[in-house]
């Protein structure tokens, strides 16, 4: 009986595992310019984390601080239980891939990959075997004896990746690895990198300004702006529940309408009252009511809202753009003080409801998708 009981207890007593990478209170100043402001973050082992934000938000600075390439002004970086805060890059454990690939142009592909394997007590044969293995892994076995300039951009980036993981580092850093590639290659490579990362189980941090890339690849996204982390969360979480108007606007698209708070779940847009997600604003506060275009629900022209119908608004369909899988409609409501509402209606819905431009229809702004945000501080995004 004792033995039986002890097993689950033991399992329970295993202490919560320390994060693989722990960044605490990081500051980085360039003269008077604050590039990172009190940034803290934990990354679990084997996780794929994306730093996402507009250019100048500090995401690359944070990556370079983790690598030791540009030392932070204050704060600590702990990797795998070791304080690496002030160590030079050569004494940290990471592999890195840059946007420019930084492949050595005068060395063959094989030599590029083998570069980090030398001087580490490996025999020539071992190195050859490992290089071949890596070439296979990135699917470029045939190209080993070519020079980087003889490969395409996507191939070069794969070589850079192979070189970075050749020594099996504990941490893989990717600095905008796909930005220099054209769209098709980019999408393809996204998938490949993610696959490889999952196979190797290597903790990975990627910097990107492309939200699609972040959403499709990351286990967790770290959204940054003005040197501050705005939100950390899984892609769906960040998309569904943006923590701030900035996040809401930066990831995916968002209609932003000026509104006044009425109660903890009601607000007024223009002349009409709407129910919205619960929030903490005091009544009377001016906020931004936000809703994603694909959350706007259309009704047919024959729809007449009854007394119980909530969150309905009569709009006129302005321009309609066909974007393949959906129609983007510009909706104009007289009650919104001329503000335009953008809605993405599925092809299906448009056909079913036979929507057309200049038509007047009712749309519903579902309560759970209408979110109140504090208006953004002065200025705006750099992007």
């Amino acid at each position: 009986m004792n033995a039986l009981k002890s097993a689950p207890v033991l399992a329970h007593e295993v202490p919560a595992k320390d994060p693989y990478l722990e960044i605490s209170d990081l500051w980085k100043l360039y003269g008077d310019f604050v590039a990172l402001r009190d940034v803290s973050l934990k990354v679990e082992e084997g996780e794929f984390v994306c730093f996402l934000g507009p250019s100048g938000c500090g995401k690359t600075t944070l990556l370079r601080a983790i690598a030791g390439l540009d030392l932070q002004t204050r704060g600590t970086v702990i990797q795998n239980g070791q304080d690496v805060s002030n160590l030079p890059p050569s004494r940290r454990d990471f592999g890195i891939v840059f946007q420019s690939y930084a492949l050595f142009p005068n060395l063959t592909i094989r030599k590029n990959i083998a570069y980090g394997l030398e001087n580490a007590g490996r025999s020539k044969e071992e190195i050859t075997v490992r290089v071949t293995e890596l070439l296979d892994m990135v699917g470029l076995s045939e190209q080993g004896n070519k020079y980087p300039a003889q490969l395409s951009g996507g191939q070069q980036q794969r070589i850079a990746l192979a070189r970075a993981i050749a020594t099996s580092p504990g941490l893989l850093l990717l600095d905008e690895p796909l930005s220099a590639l054209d769209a098709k290659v980019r999408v393809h490579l996204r998938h490949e990198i993610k696959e490889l990362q999952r196979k190797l189980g290597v903790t990975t941090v990627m910097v990107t300004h492309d939200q699609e890339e972040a959403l499709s690849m990351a286990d967790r996204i770290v959204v940054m702006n003005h040197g501050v982390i705005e939100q950390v969360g899984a892609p769906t979480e960040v998309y569904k529940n943006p923590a701030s108007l900035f996040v809401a606007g930066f990831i995916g698209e968002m209609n932003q309408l000026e509104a006044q708070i009425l109660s903890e779940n009601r607000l007024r847009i223009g002349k009409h009252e709407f129910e919205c997600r619960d929030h903490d604003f005091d009544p009377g506060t001016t906020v931004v009511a936000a809703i994603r275009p694909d959350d706007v629900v259309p009704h047919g022209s024959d729809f007449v809202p009854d007394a119980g119908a909530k969150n309905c608004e009569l709009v006129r369909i302005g321009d309609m753009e066909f974007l393949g899988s959906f129609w983007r409609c510009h909706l104009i409501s007289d009650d919104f003080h001329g503000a335009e509402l953008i809605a993405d209606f599925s092809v299906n819905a448009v056909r079913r409801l036979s929507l057309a431009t200049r038509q007047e229809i009712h749309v519903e702004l579902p309560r759970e998708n209408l979110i109140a945000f504090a208006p953004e501080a002065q200025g705006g995004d750099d992007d």
Partner: protein
Amino acid sequence: MTDAATLPPGRDVKPRLSRDDVMMRSWMIVIALYLVVTLVFPLYAMLSKSFSTYHFDLGQFEFQVSDDDGVFATDPVLASTLNDQLGVFGEADLRAGSDGRLPATKLFPDFSFRSSKMYRVRGTSDEAVYLVGSTRHSGTAWQELDSNTFRRVQMRPVSGTGFGNFVTYFSTPALSNSIKNSLVISTIATVLTVTLAFGFAYALNRSCLRFKGAFRIIAMAPILVPSLLPGIALVYLFGNQGMLKELLMGQSIYGPIGILIGSVFFTFPHAFLILSTALAISDARLYEAADSLKTSPWKTFWTVTIPGARYGIISATFVVFNLVITDFGLPKVIGGQFNVLAVDIYKQVIGQQNFEMGAVVSVVLLIPAVFAFAIDRIVQRRQVAQLSARSVPYEPKPQKGRDRVAMIYCSVIGVFIIGLLAICQYAALIKFWPYDLSLSLNNYQFDLMDGGGWGSYFNSIKLGLLTAIVGTGVVFFGAYLVEKANGFEMGRGFFQMVAMLPMAVPGMVLGLAYIFFFNNPANPLNAIYGTMAILVVCTVTHFYTVSHLTAVTALKQMDREFESVSASLKQPTMKLFRRVTVPVCLPALLDISIYLFVNAMTTVSAVVFLYSPKTALASIAVLNMDDAGDIAPAAAMGMMIFYTNAAARIIHLLVSRGLLTRTQAWRFR
């Protein structure tokens, strides 16, 4: 929102340096120290030398005169007291050089060497030095001399510090006139060269001239010869026995005219190169715009071409000005009585052994050179910005009239350049100009002439090779460290500044500064004085800046992240340097080597003070043979330098091509 005040209290994170960081910083310090030791210290030694003065301290000498019977009845009297009474020596008389002598008898107006009076002389301190005849005496013991011997007493000056040398310099018109001469000749030569070179560059860039490649090569040829070679050619053309003497209409080639023509010759390639680049980068769209607005070509020239090339023009102006004002070889050969600063230094030091005055002239020469250099730097910084702007290169379309004018113009310049070189070669092969015009190789028997013989030619090649190898190594490694090291901003800034300095220092000044600094027994580096080593060091330092800039430009084109990748792969930076940086920058390395080689072969100014009989150089031999009147052998040696440099250039080209195809296969897809 970017206030730093919110930063939590505490210390900034201090980086722990990697072994590579420490190594790179140490080497950077070593190379910076090299520059300090080979440039800053010598210049300081020179500066202090210019303030080291000599003057007669009359309070140091005491005399006693006897009566006619040789009995010393009167009290001893100080020379200063005598001078106060008599006022024989004014302040200017008491300033002296290191070799100054002041006859004691001047203080005795009624002195007669036939009188039977006896004289006593002594110093009042141990430092007092006087000569009896040419025998040196010092100290406070009395010397008793008869009047005939006292006639031979000369007081010697004591050393001090002060502005005395500068006062002497500026109050001696024969010396200070050179400032005006130098400025005037440099200004005129600059205007002439820049104008002519602009025309040439314009013709090559803006017309459909044929044989552009050949014209380009011809324009660059003067860079391969010492600056004094055109002087020699001019003697054969316009000297009293010159072939074209009549063209000068009675004017003498020895003087400003000769310096001007020669300066145009040897500075032409420098101006041409800069202006050609400036014209090549200007934007074709501006011309199209001007065309569509029906602007006249003349107006287009002044409103589009000139403004577009303005930085190039300004840069060329100051480069040429600097070259002319600091050049020594040409005015030495053809300057005649027209004194200029650079030659004055030589005359003071070699002719009169007046090192202090040489230092003063050096300081004077340093001022316009530094000024011109500073302006050039500022302008170049702006031009870089202009270069990076996107523009569409201009493609000239054939236009008969214009192309014909361009052809004539370029041909005239080409004939001028080739003509001067050909004349030298012709003169070198003539047996005895102008009396025996048969051809002979007599003038190549350098061993029978002053200047060091064939040995000097091989020394020059040795110097060229050593300078190329050592210099390229030091310069490139230094540039690599300063470009790619992490942090250490202050050290890097200092390094950049010191690396720019050599360009501002005229060769003559550098050479003289080396004498003061290295030829000092207290200097532990004294051992390299008089060896090939000091010539190499001096030449590398003299031509450091351009090499450094070439290296930096090449390194800037390297991916900035190579070092980061290398560090992340835990590989030593030196491995990266060896395996990637050097191979990728090989073309730049070769360019630096050939630049250093050619300059080491042609330089005269810096090394003229530093060569020793065992390390005589070909360029110096040209100078010395000309100086001794062996003009034809001088021309012969000058042409040897030309052929050697031309051969080096061709080898450089072949090697570059060979290396490119062999080791740089990666450049081609």
